[in-house]
């Protein structure tokens, strides 16, 4: 008997329903990602973008807020432009001695604080990295405390330590015949004090970021370096630092932005004094805008941070991007 193979005639398949364009759009990964991020985007739009544009609008008004503060005395510009630029407040700020002092102080504060935070964070991260795993968690937790306490609260404790009349530091120093030091009463000491507190609050952030970066450096690199006879400094310079470059750059950028815009530490510790020598953009903007009821000028001062930080962000991010492409 011959084997027979029965074959069924192929039934014509019903044409598959073609997914609609909308369905295809909704199934796209990018669409899903966008929809999932939408609540956050809306939150940012309401709490960041709207206030930012509102601040720009406010900064264009005169002190009375009844009309626009057009530029004045700008004969170096064409008339058509000069009388139609709503930057009268910015122009006014440029003529203020205190404004330039605040610019200088903000730069001094941010740059000094970030450098020392990075340095301290780097050193402490190395110490913690070398602690055996068993005890490392406790140290990590303890070292993070200054960063997790709300700065307004911890600065209050510092305020007591620096208190003009009852400073605990001065009390201790008096046993060594030193002082009393006017921690917040003298311009230079006051600047030192606010920078010190900022370093104390911010260094743990650097420490934890650097620690994470250190843990990701392959041990083989250090082993190879040791075989080659590299000393401690060469290992840091040729292995650790290059491997951490991106983390260092991003942390420095992030910290610069946050430090530049700092408000609470200066506000609680010195309120910008003595004689305005510790004001930053944010504290001076508050002083002018809220305490002085000149909201347009206060808004102009606060907006002045944006271009400075944008330039810093562009340079640092471009650098990171370039290195990413090289890799």
């Amino acid at each position, binding site marked *: 008997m011959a084997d027979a193979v029965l074959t069924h005639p192929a039934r014509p398949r019903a044409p598959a329903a073609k997914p609609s364009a909308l369905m295809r759009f909704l199934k796209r990964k990018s669409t899903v990602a966008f929809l999932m991020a939408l609540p956050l985007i809306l939150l940012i739009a309401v709490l960041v973008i709207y206030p930012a544009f509102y601040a720009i609008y406010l900064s264009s008004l*005169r002190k009375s807020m009844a009309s626009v503060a057009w530029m004045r005395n700008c004969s170096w510009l064409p008339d058509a432009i000069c009388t139609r630029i709503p930057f009268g407040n910015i122009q006014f700020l440029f003529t203020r001695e205190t404004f330039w002092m605040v610019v200088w102080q903000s730069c001094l504060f941010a740059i000094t604080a970030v450098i020392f935070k990075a340095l301290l964070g780097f050193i402490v991260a190395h110490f913690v990295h070398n602690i055996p795993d068993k005890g490392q968690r406790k140290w990590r937790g303890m070292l993070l405390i200054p960063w997790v306490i709300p700065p307004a609260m911890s600065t209050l404790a510092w305020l007591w330590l620096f208190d*003009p009349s009852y400073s605990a530091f001065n009390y201790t120093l008096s046993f060594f015949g030193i002082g009393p030091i006017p921690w917040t009463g003298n311009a230079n000491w006051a600047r030192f004090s606010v920078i010190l507190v900022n370093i104390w609050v911010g260094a743990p952030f650097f420490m934890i970021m650097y620690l994470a970066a250190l843990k990701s450096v392959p041990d083989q690199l250090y082993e190879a370096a040791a075989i080659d006879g590299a000393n401690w400094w060469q290992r840091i310079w040729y292995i650790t630092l290059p491997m951490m470059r991106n983390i260092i750059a991003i942390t420095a950028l992030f910290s610069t932005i946050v430090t530049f815009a700092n408000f609470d530490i200066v506000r609680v510790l010195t309120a910008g*004094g*003595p004689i305005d020598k510790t004001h930053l953009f944010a504290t001076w903007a508050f002083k002018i805008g809220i305490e002085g009821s000149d909201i347009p000028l206060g808004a102009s001062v606060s907006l002045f941070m944006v271009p400075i930080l944008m330039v810093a962000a562009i340079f640092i991010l471009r650098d990171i991007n370039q290195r990413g492409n090289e890799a």
Partner: protein
Amino acid sequence: MRRQTLDRRRFLAATAITTTALAAPFVRGAHAAGKLTLGLWDHWVPGANAAASAVVNEWAAKERVEVTIDYIPSQGNKNLLTIAAQAQARSGHDVLAMPTWWPHAHANQLEPVNDIMGPLMQQNGKVNGTVEYLGKLGDKWLGVPATIGSQIKGPVSRLDLMKQHAGLDMQAMYPAGAAPKADAWNMDAYAKAAEACHKAGVPFGVGLGETTDSVDTAGAFFLAFGASLVDAKGELTVKTDAVREALTYLARVGKFYPADAPAWDDASNNRWIVSGRGAMIMNPPSSWAVAKRDAPQVAQQLWHHGFPQGPKGRFSPFLPYFWTIWSFSQNKSAAKSVLVHMSSRAAAERFVEASAGYDIPSFDNFLTFKTWQDADPPKGTLYHYPNPHNHQTLSIAASPAPPKIAQQIYAQGTLTKMIVRHMQGEALERTLAWAESEVEGFLRG
């Protein structure tokens, strides 16, 4: 369907009803029900808020109005932020307590209260010049001067230390229950006493910072010399002999204050006197009240009195609060009614009592309450605190400049900065040039 036409009789009736409704300042009767929100200053003194609530709730029960009260602290400038936010949003409390400069800063958004201020002044007596300066724009009253939170920041002296080191009997100059006999209490005596107490190691605790206590004190001294940075017409008057004289004097006296006075805030002077380290501060009775609790031996030596006499008079800082009504308030007539109730003699006396004498009513007839006469220890320490004999002119720093300019001078602490700059060695003319440049900036509209 019959079409209604608006005849003359109907028009007149409707107009009369509308006019009466709008003009009626007080809410009366069962139809007065509605809602009213009040944002009052959150008092330092425990129990003072309860007195405010009681007074307002009595009115609410009588007028059948549903009342909500929020107590807004000045700590961290929460009240200033609230004022700014409500002004921007054009929404908020019907009645809002505003300190010193803020009624003027928001003048175009406030309901005029002339219709209640007139009768209140007839009933309770006149208000002082500082209240008029801060509460009135032209003929328009911007708010009702509030008892709650209003304060005088006069000298608080240690009787024993002033006698021992400066040879001054402050109690004899300002006797309880009688008019002051303080002709000898002048700028010269103040400077000598400051120097003597400094040498004795108990310096006057006068701040030179940028917060209100420091600025208020500096302002009173400037006015005593007839010195102002901007006059009432808005003209710059920085480079004048009066300002030079005041600045020279204050920089000289400032060297007798604690070395860290430029860093002092509004709590520093309180701590200074309560801890027994100084012979005098400039403050309302809050430091005395704290001393009564924490350092009774210090409290029984504290005496509240007037400022020293200057070439142009005797001035003391007065910081009134105002109860204001937003122009966008939903219930203006009820708001005015409650303010009248809160400005009655009975209410003011309760507020003063609940605040242990801290609050100062602005009306002339309310300055002799028993709370100030009976306060102790020592007996009568608060008698002269409310300035019952009009011995000194109640003033505010940076006046008589137009309030919107004066507010900038005040908020920026320009007066104390001038003192500190000159005191720390800057040449007088350089300090004046700096101040002129700063104030020029405040003149912009």
